[in-house]
Structure formats: C-alpha cells, structure tokens
C-alpha cells in the first residue's frame, strides 16, 4: 500500500510540482487534466503495476484521488491473482 502510494505520488509530482498532492485530494479539480496527462497516467499504472485497464475501468472515479487509484490498482491485482 505505502509503496504504491509513493510510486503514484512520484509520478503525479511530475505534473503537479507546485503543490504536494494529498491522498484524498481531487486531481481533476486542480485543472490540469488534459488528454495527454490522462493517457500517461493510464499507461503508467499499467506498466508500473502490471495491470490491464480496459474501457470499463476508465471511470473518472477510479482516478480521482491517490487513494482511489490505489484502491483501483489493488482491485485489479486481486482480480488477476
């Protein structure tokens, strides 16, 4: 859990440097969600955690906060194991 949070935070920090993201802070409210960021986030999660994110998973709520992302990744990993 901790390890995932650190990795995700490090990735997000490349985009939101001015501001240290809190685990339950709404990323989409910060005004820097463009298609490139979205794509990079999805690809980062797939590669870093070895999961496959399909269309059905692309619900905004799965990506809204660091907490939500971790929960989503855990859910995918559980399904796979």
């Amino acid at each position, binding site marked *: 859990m901790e390890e995932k949070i650190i990795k995700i935070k490090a990735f997000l920090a*490349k*985009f*939101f*440097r*001015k501001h240290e993201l809190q685990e339950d802070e709404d990323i*989409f409210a910060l*005004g*820097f*969600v*463009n*298609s*490139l*960021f*979205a*794509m990079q986030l*999805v690809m980062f999660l797939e590669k870093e955690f070895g999961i496959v994110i399909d*269309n059905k998973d*692309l*619900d*905004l709520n799965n*990506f809204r906060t660091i907490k939500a992302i971790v929960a989503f990744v855990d859910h995918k990993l559980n399904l796979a194991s």
Partner: protein
Amino acid sequence: MEKKEEKKIKCVIWDLDNTIWIGTLLEDSRVVLREGIVEIIKTLDSRGILQSIASKNEYKMAMEKLEEFGISQYFLYPQINWQPKSASIKKIVEKINIGMDTIAFIDDQPFEREEVRHSLPDVLCLDVTVLAELLDLPEMNPRFITEDSKIRRLMYLSDLERERQEEVFTGTKEEFLATLNMVFTISPVKEGDLQRAEELTVRTHQLNTTGYTYSYEELDNFRRSKDHKLFIASLEDKFGTYGKIGLALIECRPKEWIIKLLLMSCRVMSRGVGTIMLNYIMELAKEANVHLKAEFVSTDRNRMMYITYKFAGFKEIEEDGNFIVLENNLERIQSVPEYIRLKVVD
C-alpha cells in the same frame, strides 16, 4: 460517408550510397548526386511529404556531403549509423510520430529492403529503379496540397527547436508549456479551410474519435448546414504556427447534439490541447440546453481519445462491438488550462 482511401505516403526515407548519390562515400568522397534527385526531393517536399535518411555511413562525413550538395535541410532526424535500417526507420517514425504504414523506404540494396520488409512489413520498400516514376505514384500524390502541407517540414523543424528547449528545461511539463505562450483558436470551418479539413480526416489516426472521413463536398455541406457545426482549430506559440490541427463535427438535433468526429493532429499531442476543443463544445451544448452525446469507433490506435472522453466525464450509454455512444451530463466542465489562451472566432 466513409470511403476507402488509398494509403498515402507521409514520409520518404532515403538511403544515401548509390541511391541519393552515385558511389560509396567511405570508399571515395567524390560521389556525385544522382541525376534528377534534387528535383524529386524538392517536389516531395512541396507536396508536404516529409523526408529522412537511413544510411550506413559515418554521420559527420555524410552530413557534410549533404550540406555540400545543399540538400541537408530537407531531411528530418537523419539516421546515419551502423544499425540495421529497420532500427533507423523505427527511430524516425517514433520521432515524427506517424504510422509505419505511411512510410516509403528507398534503397538500391536488395538486402536492406529485405531486412526492412521483414521487420517492418507495413513499410513500402522501393528500389531506386522506381525513381523515374516516383513522383507519379498515387501514394506520392496527396489529393490536395494545402497551406499546411507546403510548410509541413518547417513546422517539424520548429518542433525540433521546441524539443531542444524542453530537454534543457528543468520545471514541470505545465511550467514548460506556460513558457510557450500558446494560443489555441477555434473557428467555424470556412471555404478556404475545406481542403485542410478533408486532409485532417484522412491523415489523422491516433487522435481521432471515429475515423470517419469526409470529402471536400460533404464537409462543404456540413459547413452550410443548419443541423451541423463544423469547427477547425489552430495552434500557435512563440516558435511559430502548428497550422490547422484540430477538427470537430457536431450533428445538432433539436434536443441533442452528437459529436460525430473529434480529431487532433499528432503533432500537438504533447501540448495538452486535446481537451480544449471538447470543453468548448460542452460549453456550447450547455448554453444551448441540449444533451451532448459522442460517437466513438475504437481502433488499435485511438485509445487516447477514448480516455479523453472518459476523463472529460462522458459515460458509455451504448456499445455495439467497436462502436460506442457516450453521453455527458455537462455538470462539470473544465476551464481552459492556465498555460494556454483560447481564442474563439465567429
């Protein structure tokens, strides 16, 4: 509506020894240009077809020779090294960010063509014997030559300069984008934009929501139709223009609007502008008090646009194989990012 477009070549990758020039540079530096080659290179360039090099040679020596011949500026990301040519081609394709199936490779050596054909079957491999007819091949003749195609190479060159600056920039992506002073302009498609609009529907694959292609005439009808909105977008920054890089077609019914097509040129992928056009359409739909739907046809290349819709709050309401309809309740519309200025022209 959809017609099968024959594959057009967007980039020609040249060998050097016994292709662009006669002779082997490493053996004898007094090589001479192949007859008529400069005219071919210049003509391709004027048609908006990009060019590069995949040659096994000493980089410095070969580049100096190209400069001496006065043609070095025509080649983007020249790969002159001892790697297999397929590796060089992959590198060029990655840099320019276009599809492998839009590449032609010209080399006099059967071995090199075979190596490329084997690892990159989508590349059109041509022998030098084709040069006499090269300019007449249908693949080398874009249907229109637009303002954008004429300056395409120069636009890529300014991209190179942007990349160089980005590499040495130490802040975040957002901070870098803010230094560019970007202006994104959205306007209704005018008559003078139609050729470029058609070209965009044919040329754009990655950042394209449905891949519907429309002819000049169809687009002209949409432009005049009361039941459609057809927008084109352009982007500029302090290095110059990116040209007309985005297109959106909306079918307007009394109670609902349907986005039939939303596309952005791959050249602006790293500029974070993909959502701006979408947000603008969402604003308009909200003002008009209509439901907003979007059609989507998924391919193996356009996932980014699906993500764009989903992250903009669209939800799937219909699915039939790779055809999807999404809807947005328009509750949350993102404002334009701070690093860019939006200009709307009527």
